[in-house]
């Protein structure tokens, strides 16, 4: 595995940045300080971080309703994200889209997506554009286990393979589609098994091990850049919070949650970095303090930004 120390530290920062951002949103939602729903990514940080670590700004991602982690890992601006979630005019969508519509085309973030399974066709479109333009850019399509049962996702897998497009399908299998456990909605346990039907490589990785995710996605990205077509990587992971904030989670037990909290991807990575001399304990503390300050700035920016003017209600309406 050819990862520099700097790169590993950057990945560690990204994971913590996501965790801090989401934990703060959890507090804000409980306090009634943000409008609309949020679907938090706590527990799944290794997937977005490991997957985006192989991408450049000209590569693209398509995201999901649980998209904050993907956006942060792809370099999304925390101030603009926080302002958007606060519904402020300085946000990514001028405060009118909220959590599930954040996009930043300059960074290749083709958008979070409120439609389950909505990202697959977009990723195929981006992949087709890259192939047509001969740019060598790659698109990572994040999708959940629920989305993997949508026709759109299967159509996207099929077309990406048929046209040999540079798309890496990264499945985040957290075991539940909203409140429905995978065993009640799916005839298979490994979504990667479905890759065989589309003549593409299918791989299962530990989605709570950021280096395992990185290695697999890195290889898939290399394949895609060489014109060898798409891949499907299934990351087994778990969301600590409910489907949305406020979800009572009556469909799962505390023991299951505790088992997964014990597999928290962040301390796992931290231990490896400290053990191998990549980071020292005081370095970890310094990083966390810097990230907290960075987040405070984003919150302050969002808080002091104005709400959209009523006169702007019909701006940017296309249909």
């Amino acid at each position, binding site marked *: 595995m050819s990862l520099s120390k700097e790169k590993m530290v950057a990945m560690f920062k990204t994971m913590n940045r996501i965790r801090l951002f989401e934990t703060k949103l959890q507090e804000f939602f409980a306090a009634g300080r943000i409008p609309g729903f949020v679907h938090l990514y706590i527990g799944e940080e290794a997937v977005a971080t490991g997957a985006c670590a192989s991408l450049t700004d000209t590569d693209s991602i398509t995201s999901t309703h649980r998209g904050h982690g993907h956006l942060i890992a792809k370099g999304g601006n925390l101030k603009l994200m926080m302002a958007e979630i606060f519904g402020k005019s300085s946000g990514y969508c001028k405060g009118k889209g909220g959590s599930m519509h954040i996009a930043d085309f300059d960074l290749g973030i083709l958008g979070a997506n409120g439609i389950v399974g909505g990202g697959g066709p977009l990723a195929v479109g981006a992949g087709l554009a890259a192939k047509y333009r001969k740019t060598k850019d790659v698109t990572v399509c994040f999708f959940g286990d629920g989305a993997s049962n949508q026709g759109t996702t299967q159509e996207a897998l099929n077309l990406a393979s048929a046209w040999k497009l540079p798309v890496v399908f990264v499945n985040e299998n957290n075991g539940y589609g909203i409140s429905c456990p995978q065993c009640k909605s799916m005839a*298979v*346990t490994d979504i990667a098994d479905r890759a065989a039907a589309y003549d593409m490589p299918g791989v299962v990785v530990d989605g709570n091990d950021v280096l395992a995710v990185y290695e697999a996605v890195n290889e898939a990205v290399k394949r895609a850049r060489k014109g060898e077509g798409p891949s499907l990587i299934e990351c087994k992971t778990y969301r600590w919070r409910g489907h949305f904030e406020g979800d009572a989670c009556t469909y799962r037990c505390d023991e299951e949650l505790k088992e997964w909290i014990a597999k928290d991807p962040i301390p796992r990575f931290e231990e490896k970095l400290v053990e191998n001399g990549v980071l020292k304990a005081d370095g970890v503390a310094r990083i966390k303090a810097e990230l907290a300050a960075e987040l405070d700035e984003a919150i302050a920016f969002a808080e002091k930004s104005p709400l959209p003017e009523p006169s702007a209600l019909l701006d940017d309406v296309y249909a």
Partner: protein
Amino acid sequence: MTTAAILANPASGKDIRRLVAHGSVFDNQEKVRMVRRLLLGLARTGVERVIYMPDAYGIVPRALNSIEVPLLVEAIEMPVANSQEDTIRAAEIAETLGAGVLVVLGGDGTSRAAAKGTREVPIMALSTGTNNVFPVMIETTVAGLAAGLVAANRLPREATCRRACLLEILMNDEPADIALVDAAVYTDLFVASRAVWDMDKVPRLFMTRAAPEAIGLSAIGGQLTSILPGEPRGLALTLAAHNGGTPVTAAIAPGMFATVHVQDMETMLPGRVFAVEESPCLIAVDGEREVIVRRGQRAGVRLSTDGPLVVDIRATMARARDARLFTGPANGKNNHEKRRGS
């Protein structure tokens, strides 16, 4: 009660070697079909009970969906961790429950896990993994027959099973892990996706067997010499970082070739410890980065002749033929047919 155990690994055949090499995606439904045919074979031999490792997919219960077999089929009572610990634990429990044979569906890694659980119950390893040196590719209908004959003790043990060798991985002189086929020193610090494909990071390679037709890391040794399974010797190779030594090209993964430079080749005799000079490093066992050697730890590799008992399917079936177990009017029917006819 004559008992056979089935340990079918739902995770085998799905690792990163489908990306870095050209390994097949081995879906679990295919394992279901294999187990179905295995059960039909077992039912022909006098086996009365089958115990199996539970898994999230339900490989064995699904296999029973479309067949009727005169077997008591029971899940081993154990927690499912969805890791190799399941295979180790299931093998241990199967021994205590009196299993006469352990049929393992997986690759080299799964076979190794089973051998960590028991050395006394004969193991029949059937290939569903990636680099398969230890398990065999054979139609499971016939494998079921052979496994059943072993479980039911219908043939002399010495005619059906042989003791395999293994590699003991020593940490500060104490056994810490095992490998059934090969152990590779890997100069990386992170286990990550486990598989080994970057041979520039492998300075030392140890193996219990070597065959020119093999796949995987032991295929490198197989291009230099032959060591039969169970033969009480192994092979230790020192690989040069770059050029130098004897260049050897071998298939180290499906569809993937590597050329390494063999600087030194030594025969491993049982009991002799080969020190691992690198520290820190990883030791990959049977193709998977597994053992972490921390700075200052002293690691070594030693050949042992005390490996698992392995069912020789070909020898078992040949002996069954010689004993006319499936020949003549009294032997063509199984219990199931008798029951239906009564």
